[in-house]
């Protein structure tokens, strides 16, 4: 098996090495990927069309809005799938897995607890900053959502899962995830109701007190908030299911 695998891998590698001679030169500005008019349009026209200096955010949430919407749906589906795979209903006996897991509640540690108490608000404020400032700096819904979810994961790691569940119950997290998708899709449907294509934000200037360009700017923020809701909720939900083997009782 190992020899067969090695042969297959080496064959693939050699084919790719042969193919890599046809790649464009490293960093060539006139390579096909960089000289195609779509990428030129994104670089030169984003600021005029959406007033967003960070092109990545603008392309992510505006030009490729469909793509991002369904990426968010994939994340949501993954969270639901983890719950569906791991959760056990009924009275089947739970097999405690592994020997290393602390199944008794941890004694609160003074240093860890104080550090976490200081850190979590800072992490959450930074996450909100990343979400809201994604137009002008690296960041956006995905990154901010992951950081916000990580703050809850930190709480669950430092205390135990039950404390974190008391803060944010699982049901509430899943409602939050649904809300995220609904905010995103709702903005798209709102555009449709006003008589434009799905996720064509320009038309929102009729209900927002701005011009079409700034309507796109503000809709991108709305979309990012929706993505952040979903990512936050799903990251924490996946963590709490994985760490408690689907029982949601004792974490690691």
């Amino acid at each position: 098996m190992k020899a067969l695998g090695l042969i297959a891998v080496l064959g693939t590698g050699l084919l790719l090495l042969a193919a890599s001679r046809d790649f464009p030169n490293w960093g060539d500005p006139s390579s096909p990927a960089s000289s195609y008019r779509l990428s030129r349009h994104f670089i030169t026209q984003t600021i005029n069309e959406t007033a967003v200096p960070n092109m990545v955010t603008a392309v992510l949430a505006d030009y490729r809005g469909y793509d991002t919407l369904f990426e968010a749906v994939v994340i949501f589906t993954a969270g639901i799938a983890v719950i569906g795979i791991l959760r056990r209903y009924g009275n089947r006996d739970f097999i405690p897995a592994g020997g290393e897991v602390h199944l008794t509640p941890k004694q609160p540690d003074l240093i860890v607890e104080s550090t976490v108490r200081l850190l979590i608000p800072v992490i959450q404020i930074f996450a909100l900053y990343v979400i809201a400032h994604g137009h002008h700096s690296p960041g956006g819904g995905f990154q901010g959502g992951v950081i916000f979810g990580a703050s809850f994961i930190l709480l669950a790691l430092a205390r135990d899962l039950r404390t974190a569940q008391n803060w944010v119950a699982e049901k509430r997290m899943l409602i939050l995830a649904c809300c995220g998708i609904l905010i995103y899709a709702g903005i798209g449907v709102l555009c449709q109701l006003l008589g434009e294509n799905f996720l064509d934000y320009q038309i929102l200037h009729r209900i927002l007190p701005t011009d079409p360009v700034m309507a796109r700017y503000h809709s991108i923020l709305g979309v990012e908030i929706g993505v952040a809701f979903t990512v936050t909720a799903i990251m924490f939900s996946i963590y709490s299911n994985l760490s408690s083997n689907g029982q949601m009782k004792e974490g690691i």
Partner: protein
Amino acid sequence: MEAQGQEGEIVSQFWIFDLILLVFLVTTAVIALRVRDLLSAAMIFGVYSFLICLLWTGMGAVDVAFTEAAVGAGVSAVFLISTVLRTSRKSSD
């Protein structure tokens, strides 16, 4: 011309940094797959993610690097560790 020369110098220095990163990258990838203790493998995988995040920062993909730092080095390492602690920590290969 002078500006061009200076820029070339910066680029070549950047390549040395790049080369060091790439060597570390391959090393951490191999170690993460060879080490028998799965907890160590998960931690070294976090290091690998952070190195690739640095590489992307060098390539100018700041958004991707930010995502990788938050996701790869943070959350996915935590997912791996929680699974390792919930299953077995020993690996046969």
